[in-house]
């Protein structure tokens, strides 16, 4: 079976529900008492679509400002980005825009972009309209989704869309991407073997000068 392996990074302001979304999708559960992520958490999951298998390495990052300077570590070499905001908080939508700017500036490879408005269960408190979010997402060539991690609404679609996006990317001969594509019958668990390490490890700072410097510059007040 044709297997595509990609790295996906989840970005967004604090408290918008990034971890809740990922845990809902991968762990099939929801907790009201999730503690803020410190640094980042790493998950893996597999999705089968038609004749392909997609393996996702999900980096769920922390939303707090103090971790902002570490983000390049996670979005470097990413093939897809989930940009999550809270529909009841306009500031978190603005923060998505600034993430997109940062990605555009620092990531040269093609990225599957997904903008996700979370917390649709709080519809009455909505501050970001669907139209506004759609319009913005179109302008950056992404796909827009609305979800509720609480009610498990729409989250499946987000990850499915990412998987489909990655398959398309892998089949496009004109795109130079870092996806790992192989026939899964003869390559067991490759992300952990030595070849995988050099490929997916975060060791390509020197290749990506702006990222290295980016890691130091922001964050001061």
């Amino acid at each position, binding site marked *: 079976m044709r297997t595509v392996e990609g790295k996906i990074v989840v970005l967004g302001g604090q408290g918008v529900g990034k971890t809740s979304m990922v845990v809902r999708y991968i762990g099939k559960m929801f907790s009201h008492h999730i503690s803020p992520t*410190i640094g*980042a958490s*790493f998950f893996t999951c597999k999705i089968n679509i038609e004749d392909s298998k997609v393996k996702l390495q999900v980096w769920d990052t922390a939303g707090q*400002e103090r971790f902002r300077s*570490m983000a390049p570590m996670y979005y470097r070499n990413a093939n897809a980005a989930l940009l999550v905001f809270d529909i009841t908080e306009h500031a978190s939508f603005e923060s998505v825009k600034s993430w997109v700017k940062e990605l555009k500036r620092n990531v040269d490879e093609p990225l599957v972009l997904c903008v996700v408005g979370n917390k649709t269960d709080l519809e009455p408190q909505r501050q970001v309209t669907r139209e506004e979010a759609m319009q913005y997402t179109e302008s950056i060539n992404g796909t827009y989704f609305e979800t509720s991690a609480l009610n498990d609404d729409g989250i499946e679609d987000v990850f499915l869309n990412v998987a489909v996006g990655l398959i398309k990317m892998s089949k496009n001969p004109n795109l130079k991407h870092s996806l790992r594509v192989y026939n899964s019958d003869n390559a067991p668990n490759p992300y*952990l073997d030595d070849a995988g390490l050099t490929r997916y490890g*975060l060791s390509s700072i020197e290749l990506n000068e702006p990222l290295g410097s980016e890691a130091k510059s922001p964050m001061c*007040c």
Partner: protein
Amino acid sequence: MSSSAPGGLEGPFKFPNSPEPQSSSSSFVVPYIEEERPESPAKHGLDEKDFEKLVLGSDFVDESNVDEDCNVAQELKKYKYNIFVLSSAGKPVYSRYGNEDKLSTLFGVMQVLVSFIQDSNDVLKSIRCNGCTFTFLSKGPLILVSVAKTQQSDTQLLSQLTYVYNQVISVVTLSRLTKIFEQKCNYDLRRLLSGSERLIDQLLVFMETDYAFLLGAVRVLPLAPTARDDISNIIVSACSKIKNLVFALLIANNQLITLVRMKKYELQPSDLHLLFNLVNSSESFKTAESWTPICLPLFNPSGFLHCHVSYLSEDCQACLMLLTVDHDLFYTLSTAKQKIVETLRRKGSLKDINDALALKPISASELGIYGLRHFMCKSRKHPQFWSSRVDTPYDTPEEVEHLMSLYQNLHQHVHHPTRPLKLCYQQMDSEIMLGHITAEYEFYFTFEPLVTKSDAISAAGRLPSVWLKDDEEKKKFIFTDPTF
């Protein structure tokens, strides 16, 4: 009043008879206001009532905010132990209870007190009034203040403030903290700390309930020495080839299973406590592997270590932490972790850990020593300790707190800075406390109140041979020191 606290300086606040700073620096050593000497506060230009008013903000705020601020401050009075952190410019950073914004006047007062004493080239250490101790710690750009209605010694109160300071450093690093405040002295540090307040909250609870902080030691999960060696060896062999891995530790339920370190480096107990606290306060580690930056202030206050945190498996809730200086090492450590878990499982170590976790510590009454209610034992060579199960009559939160205060009191007498004791016997209202320092261990006992002095002392002398017989000693303490 505006929310910027230093503005309060121009308010009605004045020290009525403030001494001339230049002439009085020697007489103004520390405004040490003792309960027994009610005249002393007035001597320093601050009478006790005024002081209380100031600290409660009631005499100090704009009419518009009087009610609200007053209520908030009054609310705080009911707590036994409170901690505030502020920047040296008086900006609120953290308050254990209440909303910092609502307490800006209070923070203003604290800042004024500290800087007023500083102006005369002196340091404000503590103020005592009405059975309440205000302890101050001014470190770098931060001021930490605790308000305690407990019987703890100055050293203990100061050590708790230092822990809170270290916790802040562990989140932001000292170099970043210093830099930020150099660039912008009225920076609102809460922006950087957001999401980490719970680490401080949890640390304070941890300090109030766990003897580890009082003793400056860590609790060890009792394991047969061979079982523990197996675990250490498995970790060493999986990690020995990984460059830049500094520490690997396995902890479960607040107890250390093993710690492997790079030869050159050691991990101090207070840094270990911060790691324990991190694991305790972060449920999210249970769901996935995490890659977490953490600064260990005693190891290196100016940089982050990157920590691979993961629980061993669904069926073994021990938490493995792999600490490195290399931020590119995640996947390597992730592989190493899988290898460690596989080998642990194959060799039956996961079962050993689970069995040890299921075993409750023995109760003092099971030792057959007449009148012994509770005891703990700290190794003097290794910063490790063991304590018996807390049993009746200490089975309510109030009683547990009472027991803690008894030990705090005993500990402060045994470790008196100028007159340390080898043996300390205290007849209290409802128990007898006994501290006994041997060449290798420190023992702390709680006896029934009616046990005679000679019985208590002879029991204390006999206990080590009963309790540490055979291999028990090697089970309860880690004497080996595995390195990569």
